[in-house]
């Protein structure tokens, strides 16, 4: 299947394409606006072609596509498992961009990162001797790079072609070499590996920086070394202005794309920071750009390259030269600084104040004291203003001192030469003090900024650690991200249907749009950030980040910053990614905790079930044994029994069957309670009704026993599930019957108590063994009785039901003998008022 091809109007191309399924085909000589049809990635993945042919890997996609460049599309397809055959020209490789420019004067805009060729399984070099290529050019069969055909023709000078051919051959050879090494390693053939080199490239805000990066990349490739890129933020970084800062961010991003580790250091002197970083990271080679400042400045102040060379000990320093492309004007940082007029009133005011003080104290104190007054003033100005105002302050101080307090007074002339010395010293001291103060202030500021960032991360981690539920977690995360990064946040979590759903987090104002939702799905699948400032759909206003933890992606975070420029710096993206990492960890922890709890419940259910099984098998067999025995004896001796015996046996049968029935009912109730399937549907009931129903059901077992009920008429309605409370009463009554002798009294009472109603079932039996009052209510507890049957579940069920109503149940012995079981039913609220429709 052919993904995209540009035939440039050549008929033999069309002929070659016959019989192949084509997705997109263009036949322009060169595209007018540089854009081309984007590849429909989802359709291709769905179609699962054996091989996809994609022409012109370096092409840019039209603005609304998922990725800005075609090579990114191909990368995604590779990730999805599609094999791709792509074509590109040698000068379209990113690291060769400068070389190409040097050779040909053409700046190649559309480039492909080197890793596309490095990761390729096969590179087929289409190689022609330059003469043949020129012939083809003459025949019009060659596509010229760049929009301008004239320049393109210049591109095809024989010298250029030879140089490019050499590059191509060398690249292919490198690739073959790498494959051979891999093959040898796979076959466990010993090779000698070179000593691990590590390369450090230093960049500044100048446009040359990208060349330095690319050169470092080539260097690293050649040495097969790791490489890092570092930028040192000095006090002058603050004065860079937007274009400068953006350039730095771009360069760092380019470095990362090319495979480097990018770092931003802060310090006041570039060479020192770079060297100390190089020492900690065991860098073997440092790459830096050639200084572009004029010679006199270099001689006077030294250049960074010189300083590096001086301080580098055993590390090699490579100085890369660059030729700046003509269309990018280089504006030095100094010129870009605005003029903060406001700051300059301070030194003026200071000098004025010091002079006034000086005039006051002049008659009483010596010169030296006045110098100190001015110095104090200079310190005051330096503590508040930048280097410019401080310098002005120094100069003005000296001038004022000279004018007002050094003879001859009120002139700038100097009578004694030692005064000149004094001026000089004063000036130098003032300068040094102001310089130091400014630097100290700046260092403190930047340290404070870093500390703030770390503190923000720590604060969020701490809050996340104490949050248990997912909703709280999300709320904490959203709040922190919003505070630190200033923007709107939304979190999407997967829903059971397989899609991603935005979570309603209190106070979050971001409602993701349809494009953002689509992109989130992509992010979730590919586990890569997308959107603003990344390589995928960077034109969006929002940034989508995956929340990835050890078990995979848990969700997606969408962030729309108030100021999109802020997110262009890779370090901001890193920071936000760190935050997202924390959130993902917390989410995973919550998930795992929930799973652990469920596992615990399962374990408990299992253990309960096994206890039940062992108890039940005994308790079921006993009545069954009687039933089987009785029935079989009736059958066997049917003719021989007299009616009285037969009747007795039949009654036994009936009783045992009832016992079995009761046991089964208790078991079912217990299982339902335990598994949480018990639903308490409360309604307002008169308690006597439930008591009456329970007594009605127990009519037969209660026969022959006096039953006393003491229920006041004005007992309020209680909110209960009548079927369940009836069950509680029945269980208590059954117990009373079981454990008390025939004919002994059973008493049912109910009365109002604090917070609700208290119900009691009391008997005159043997009572409860002391110490067993609470154990009674445990599962499978059986009291001592002459006919102990039943699984011991009745009271446990009562407790389960009463507690499900919010009440308490307990047992105690009565004075005068016997046991008393009481339970409370809390009454909150009032029954709905009834309209008085009755006379």
């Amino acid at each position: 299947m052919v993904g995209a091809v540009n035939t440039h109007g050549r008929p033999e191309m069309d002929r070659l394409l016959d019989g192949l399924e084509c997705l997109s085909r263009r036949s322009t000589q060169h595209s007018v606006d540089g854009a081309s049809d984007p590849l429909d990635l989802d359709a291709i993945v769905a179609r699962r072609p054996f091989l996809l042919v994609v022409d012109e890997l370096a092409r840019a996609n039209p603005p609304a596509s998922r990725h800005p460049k075609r090579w990114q599309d191909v990368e995604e397809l590779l990730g999805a498992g599609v094999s791709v055959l792509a074509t590109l020209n040698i000068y379209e490789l990113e690291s060769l961009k400068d070389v190409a420019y040097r050779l040909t004067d053409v700046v190649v805009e559309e480039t492909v990162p080197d890793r596309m060729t490095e990761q390729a399984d096969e590179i087929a070099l289409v190689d022609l001797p330059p003469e043949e290529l020129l012939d083809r050019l003459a025949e019009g069969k060659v596509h010229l790079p760049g929009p301008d055909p004239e320049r393109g023709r210049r591109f095809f000078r024989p010298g250029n072609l030879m140089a490019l051919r050499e590059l191509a051959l060398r690249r292919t050879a490198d690739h073959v070499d790498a494959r051979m090494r891999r093959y040898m390693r796979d076959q466990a053939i010993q090779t000698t590996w070179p000593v691990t080199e590590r390369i450090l490239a230093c960049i500044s805000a100048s446009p040359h920086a990208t060349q330095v990066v690319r050169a470092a990349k080539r260097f690293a490739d050649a040495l097969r070394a790791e490489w890092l890129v570092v930028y040192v933020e000095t006090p002058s970084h603050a004065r860079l202005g937007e274009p400068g800062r953006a350039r730095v961010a771009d360069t760092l991003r380019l470095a990362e794309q090319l495979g480097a580790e990018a770092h931003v250091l802060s310090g006041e002197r570039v060479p020192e920071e770079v060297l100390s970083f190089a020492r900690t990271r065991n860098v073997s080679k440092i790459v830096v750009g050639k200084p572009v400042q004029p010679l006199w400045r270099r001689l006077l102040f030294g250049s960074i390259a010189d300083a590096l060379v001086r301080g580098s000990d055993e590390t090699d320093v490579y100085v890369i030269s660059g030729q700046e492309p003509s269309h990018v004007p280089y504006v030095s940082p100094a010129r870009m600084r605005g003029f903060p007029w406001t700051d300059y009133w301070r030194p003026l005011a200071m000098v004025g104040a010091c002079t006034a003080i000086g005039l006051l104290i002049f008659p009483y104190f010596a010169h030296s004291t006045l110098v100190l007054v001015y110095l104090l003033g200079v310190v005051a100005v330096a503590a508040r203003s930048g280097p410019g105002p401080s310098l002005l302050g120094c100069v003005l101080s000296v001038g004022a001192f000279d004018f007002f307090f050094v003879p001859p007074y009120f002139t700038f002339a100097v009578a004694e030469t030692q005064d000149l010395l004094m001026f000089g010293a004063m000036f130098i001291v003032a300068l040094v003090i102001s310089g130091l103060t400014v630097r100290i202030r700046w260092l403190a500021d930047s340290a404070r900024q870093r500390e703030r960032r770390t503190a923000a991360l720590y604060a969020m981690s701490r809050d996340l650690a104490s949050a248990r539920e997912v909703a709280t977690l999300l709320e904490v995360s959203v709040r922190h991200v919003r505070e630190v990064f200033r923007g709107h946040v939304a979190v999407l979590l997967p829903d059971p249907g397989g899609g991603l759903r935005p979570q309603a987090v209190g106070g979050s104002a971001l409602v993701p749009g349809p494009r953002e939702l689509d992109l989130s799905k992509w992010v979730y699948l590919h586990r890569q950030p997308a959107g603003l400032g990344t390589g995928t759909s960077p034109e969006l206003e929002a940034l989508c980040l995956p929340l990835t933890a050890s078990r995979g992606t848990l969700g997606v975070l969408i962030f729309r910053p108030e100021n999109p420029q802020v997110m262009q710096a890779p370090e901001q993206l890193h920071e936000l990614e760190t935050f997202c990492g924390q959130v993902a960890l917390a989410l995973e922890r919550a998930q795992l905790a929930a799973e652990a709890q469920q596992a615990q419940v399962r374990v408990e259910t299992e253990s309960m079930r096994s206890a039940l099984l062992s108890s039940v098998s005994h308790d079921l067999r006993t009545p069954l044994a009687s039933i089987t025995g009785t029935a079989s004896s009736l059958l066997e001796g049917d003719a021989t029994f007299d009616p009285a015996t037969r009747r007795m046996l039949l009654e036994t049968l009936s009783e045992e069957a009832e016992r079995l029935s009761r046991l089964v009912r208790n078991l079912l109730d217990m299982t339902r309670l335990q598994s949480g399937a018990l639903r308490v549907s409360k309604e307002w009931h008169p308690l006597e009704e439930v008591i009456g129903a329970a007594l009605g059901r127990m009519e037969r077992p209660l026969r022959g026993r006096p039953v006393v009920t003491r229920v006041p008429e004005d007992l309020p309605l209680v909110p209960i599930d009548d079927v369940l409370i009836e069950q509680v009463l029945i269980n208590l009554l059954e117990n009373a019957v079981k454990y008390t002798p025939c004919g002994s009294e059973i008493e049912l009472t109910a009365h109002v108590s604090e917070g609700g109603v208290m119900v009691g079932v009391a008997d005159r039996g043997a009572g409860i063994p002391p110490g067993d009052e609470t154990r009674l209510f445990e599962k499978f507890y059986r009291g001592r009785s002459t006919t102990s049957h039943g699984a011991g579940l009745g009271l446990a069920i009562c407790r389960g039901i009463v507690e499900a109503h919010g009440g308490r149940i307990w047992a105690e012995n009565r004075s005068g003998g016997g046991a008393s079981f009481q339970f409370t039913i809390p009454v909150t609220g009032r029954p709905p008022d009834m309209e008085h429709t009755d006379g």
Partner: protein
Amino acid sequence: MGSSRSDPSVAGPTPARPVVLLIEDEPQIRRFLCAALDTQGFRLIEAATGEEGVAAAATRQPEIIILDLGLPDMDGLDIIRRVREWSTIPIIILSARGQERDKITALDAGADDYVAKPFGVGELLARMRVALRHAARGAGDPGESKFSVGDLEVDLAQRQVTLAGQPIHLTPIEYRLLATLVRHAGKLLTHHQLLNEVWGPNRTEQAHYLRVYTAQLRRKLEADPARPRYVLTEPGVGYRLAAE
């Protein structure tokens, strides 16, 4: 075994031996019911599936239907509704314990009473007798005006209620409630049915009202309201006036 044990010489069912249609899939239950009902003077038609039962109800004209709610092929509710479309044959349902919801729905759909499994035959017979009595009364005379059970006497025509000879004063709603219970004496009435008859169709969701008034009624009629003799409660389902 869908045969009826009828004397072939007698044409059609006679009131003396009422025909009972038993729709129950468990053969053991059919067996003992057969035996019990036969000795009590009933003639039994058995159906093992819902479809068979509905067909038999139409063709064999039983006096009373005993229906198991847990049939495999059809929902018991459907059977009740279908039969109720064209007949008022009393239907008694056999239900499992703990299915209050199903019982209520079945009763509201037209069943007359229920018996919970496991049950004793005596209970079933008592319900059957009540149901048959009401059916006979409905078909025949416009309705007895006097009713008595135990010490309680109710004269519907005169609107008088006496307990052991003493007249009892009831409020209009209490009387209407009692009268409804009396008209269906012995039969279980759901909350819904009672609310409908006493308060009208707009109040059928307010079981709370019903309970309060029943409690008041009980206090007036019963010696010990906590051990009612006349106004019996079926928790979760409804009320029944004792018929004997």
